[in-house]
Structure formats: C-alpha cells, structure tokens
C-alpha cells in the first residue's frame, strides 16, 4: 500500500490498513488488567465446560437416594441436591449451556445482524426502511419480557431459549452495521472501487465489512454477560433447558425449595453465574476500551 501512496495517489483512495490488527489488539490487551481478570474467569468456565467429563467426580445426572442434601465436604465438594446428585459435577456441566448462550448465540446473532445491516445500509430505499423498522420493532420490546414471550409461544426448550436470546441481540448489530455502511459507502476508497467495476458483494465484504467490524465486535463482547443472564433467567423459570440436563439457572431454582436445609445448591450455582457474567463483563469492557475508546465513558 505504501508503494501506491508513493506513486501519488491521494490518501483518501487508500483503504485503511488492517495488517497485524490482531497482533496490535493482543499487545493492547496486555495492558488491560481487569480484562485479564475477565479472561481468567472465563477460562475457568471454558475449562469447566470442555473438561467436565474428566474433571467431574460424578455423573451429573446420577441419582443417589442414600446421599440426599449432603452438605459440602470430602465426598461432595459442593454437597448434593435433593436427588443426591453431586452439585459440583452439575455446575461443571451447567457451564456448557451458559457458554453456549454467551458465545455461540451472541456470535451467530452478530453475524446475522451484520448481514442485515450491510444489506440495509448498502441497498437503501425501501429495503432499508422495511428492515430497519423491523429492527426498531424488535428493539421496542422490553428484553426479558420478549424472551419469555418467545419461549412461551414456541415451547420451552434449549433451542427456543437460544432463538429468544438471538432475537434480542441481532437488531443492535444490524443498526450499527447499517450506520457504518452508510458512512463508509460514501468514502473515496469505496467510490474508487466502484469505478473500477467491483461488484456490490465484493465492495461489501472486502471493503465495507472489515472497516465496520470494530464496533460490532465491541457490541458483541458487551452482550455476552447479558446473554448469559437471560439464559439463566429463562432456565430458572423453566423456559430454557429441560431437566435433567444441568443448567445454572435451573439449579438455583431447584435449590430454592431447600434454602433452609441445603443452601449450597442455590448459592453455589448462583455464584457460578456471577463469576461467568463478571468475567464476560470485564472482557467486554476491555475490548471496548481498546477498539472503541470513544465509548469508554458510556
């Protein structure tokens, strides 16, 4: 790119450089101390989710009628629940559902939202108007109420809970992607590309998308914690994962009936939610500070 610039092409015709962006991001991240704490907390969750079959001392669904509501101790690190299942093992397996909601679902909805936003912003006109009014409508619902309504209508199970979380996440990405597309579309380097005869698809993916990515990554990383909270709330209400599959929200609910005799069931699973969400929030804040310092105070 420097050779072209040297040949007398004005700077505005050169697409902003993006080489070694990832390396630059990593070196900036090393200075984010709270972000590193967040990564450590999330790593714990990821290790729990992936390593559950090897780490867990018991099968998460093994019922043991002789050892019901045992308090934490040597045999059961975090005690047992009302069916004698090992709480620690269930928490390890429960990490899978929450991480799935937090990372897989949020990533997928960022991709969907970005695609919608790119199309709306680039096409303009009636396509833009219809798509964006639809996004406005989706954003007009109070989040958790809408998620509850979706799972209630479609039926309570994991897939529908994930659909509900995705529906809450992608309109925001669409709005941002559209905004970025609208401003990038008019930039000289895109105009130059169009003059050279590039197809809209090429312009969108090669030139607009890479430059619109930063705010979308920021939004996505800020949404992870909230997505985990919504998943656990839905599971708590029995609208997410169905028993006997272990999930943190459902465990808090199961333990609530035994708060007096066995407080560790609700307390431990709730604590797991807290640590994972805090990790996600710390990571999200750090990513935002690096990629989008303008938003630091927001």
């Amino acid at each position, binding site marked *: 790119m420097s050779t072209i610039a040297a040949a007398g092409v004005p700077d505005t015709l050169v697409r902003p450089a993006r080489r070694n962006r990832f390396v630059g991001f990593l070196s900036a991240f090393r200075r984010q101390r709270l972000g590193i704490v967040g990564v450590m907390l999330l790593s714990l969750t990821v290790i729990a989710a992936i390593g559950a079959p090897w780490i867990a001392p018991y099968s998460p669904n093994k019922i043991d009628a002789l050892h019901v509501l045992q308090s934490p101790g040597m045999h059961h690190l975090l005690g047992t629940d009302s069916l004698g299942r090992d709480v620690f093992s269930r928490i390890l397996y429960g990490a899978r559902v929450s991480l799935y909601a937090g990372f897989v679902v949020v990533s997928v909805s960022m991709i969907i939202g970005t695609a919608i936003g790119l199309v709306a912003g680039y096409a303009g006109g009636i396509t833009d108007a219809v798509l964006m009014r639809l996004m406005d409508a989706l954003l007009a619902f109070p989040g958790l*109420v809408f998620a509850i309504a979706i799972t*209630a209508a479609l039926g309570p199970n994991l897939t529908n809970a994930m659909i509900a979380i995705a529906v809450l996440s992608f309109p925001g990405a669409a709005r941002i992607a559209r905004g970025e597309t609208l401003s990038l579309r008019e930039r000289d380097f895109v105009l130059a590309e169009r003059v050279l005869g590039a197809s809209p698809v090429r312009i969108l993916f090669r030139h607009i998308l890479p430059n619109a990515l930063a705010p979308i990554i920021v939004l996505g990383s800020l949404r992870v914690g909230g997505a985990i909270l919504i998943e*656990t709330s839905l599971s708590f*209400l029995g609208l997410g994962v169905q028993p006997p599959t272990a999930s943190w929200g459902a465990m808090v*609910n199961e333990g609530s009936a035994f*708060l007096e005799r066995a407080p560790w069931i609700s307390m431990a699973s709730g604590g797991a939610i807290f640590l994972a969400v805090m990790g996600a929030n710390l990571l999200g804040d750090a990513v935002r500070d690096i990629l989008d310092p303008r938003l630091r105070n927001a």
Partner: protein
Amino acid sequence: MTGYVVRRFLMMVPVVLMVTMLLFVLRQATPGDPATVAVGETSGLTSAEYEQTLQQLRARYGLNRPIFVQYLDWLGQMSIGDLGRSYRSNQPVRDAIQQRLPVTFELGFLSLLLGWSIAVPAGVVAARNRNKIQDLGANFVGLLGLSLPSIWVAFVFIYVFAVRFHWLPPSGFVPFLDNPTQNLKSMALPVITLGTSGAAVIMRFTRSSLLEAMSQDYMRTARAKGLSERAIVWRHGMRNALIPLITIAGLEFGGLLGGAFIIEEIFALPGMGKLAVDAIYARDYPIVQGVVLLTTVAYLLANFAVDVAYGMLDPRIRYA
C-alpha cells in the same frame, strides 16, 4: 414543541404496528389454536367427527379467514382493550391484569425510587472524586451490580434475612390497605433486589455524563465567576448531565418490567409478572399475550415520554 411531540408520536406508529404484528405472529406460533383447545374438552369423537367439529369451530371463531383479516380483527379487539378471556378460568384477561396491576405497580415504583436514590448520589460522588478511592469503590460496586444475577441475589437475601435471622418474611404478600407495616415488610426484599439490580447501570451513567459535563468550557466559566462548588455541580453540571441520563431511564424501565417477572415469581408476589409466568406453565396463552402486550405498550410509552422530556430539556433536539 407541539410539532416535535406530534412528529415523535407519528414516528411511533410504524413501530407499534410492527410490534403488534410480531405479537400476532407469536400468537399464531403457539401450539393449539382456540378451536383445538375447545375440542380437546369433548372426548369420545371419531377422527372424522373430530375433524368436522374442528372445522365448524374454526369457522365460528373466524380462524378460516385470511391471516391478514384475522390480524386486523385481532388488532381491532386489542385496541379497544378487549384482551380476550383466560383459557383456564374464562375470566376476561383485562380483569385478571387489573387485579394484579397494583402489586406490580408498587414493586416497580418503590424499586425505581430506591434504585435512583442510591445510584445518582453515588454517581455524583464518584465523578467528583475521579480516580480517588470513592470513584474506584463506586466502579467496583457498579461492576458487581452489573454482574450479579438477580435470581441469586434474591436467594442470598432470603437466606440471610428470612431463613437465618427471621427479620423479614421470605415470600408472600399483604395488601397495603390491610396492613401497611406487613405490606412494606413483605415488599422490602423484592424491592431491594429489583431496585439495586438497575442501580449499577444508572450509577455508571451518572458518573460518566457528569464527568462529560464537567469537562465543558462553561464549567470553567462558572468557576471563574466564583460560584460555589455546590452550584457548579448541581446547577451547571447535573442539569446538563441529566439529558443522557433520561435515555437510560427509559431503557432501565424495560429492565424493571422484565425483572418484575422473575422477582414476583421468587417472592410469590401476586403481580402481573407472576400472573404471566403461572399462565405460561398452564398454557393459558391469552393471559401471557395480554401481559406481554401491556408491558410492551408501557415500555413504548415510557420511551416516548423520554423523548418528549429530551426535547423539553434540550432545544437542539427539537429542531434536528
């Protein structure tokens, strides 16, 4: 100003139409149309008879008409406040909601009051002592508040205050008019849980928007004039910091509505949220739909009010 309000109101129309369409689509997606539910009660039919009855009932309920006509019909009913009847009790949904509304209203009002009266002063203190111990403390508490799941906080409170020390009832509800003291006692834990859950966001926003306002040139002027610190912070700083804060108020209201569903369920408060959650378990969809519609409309109106307040406080917005 009137022009701005009218324009803003008209902007809401397409969104409201889309919202109702989405709710209608959700209603269509629910398993079992009213006809199936009605036939389900009459047993001992052959499959041919069953089909025939189903067809007759569909015709009677108008379910065989084009979907768009059904939508308009449904919209017409909803807009005159006819939310249908409960599948289970046959009670009009509107009456069921009206009975439960005061509880949710009390919970919401007290939670808002508590949340804002903690968050705004905390945010001001944090901003005025930027990077000092108060600020770091407030940031830390804010981070905790943002990450603490309210389903967990609620049970920690119940465990400490009800199970361990028996200071407050773990759940249940007493109407205010029956016994004001008992009412406030039964509301204390739900209000603290719900109120503090939103406080973190409000506090962070108060801090950042006050810092933003304090860095403006007119603050230097105010100082140069020799105004007291108090006047500088509240009359010049806070007044300008209010504008972004009001936007958050609208968004937080949405969080409060969702939170009420969970909190009412945990503390067995007979409010609108618990009505809806119980209805979900009983597959009583008209109730669920009525509550969702009402909360969504409340949220839309809150955000409309926010935009109007925005225009009142900041003339620049009116002409944009």
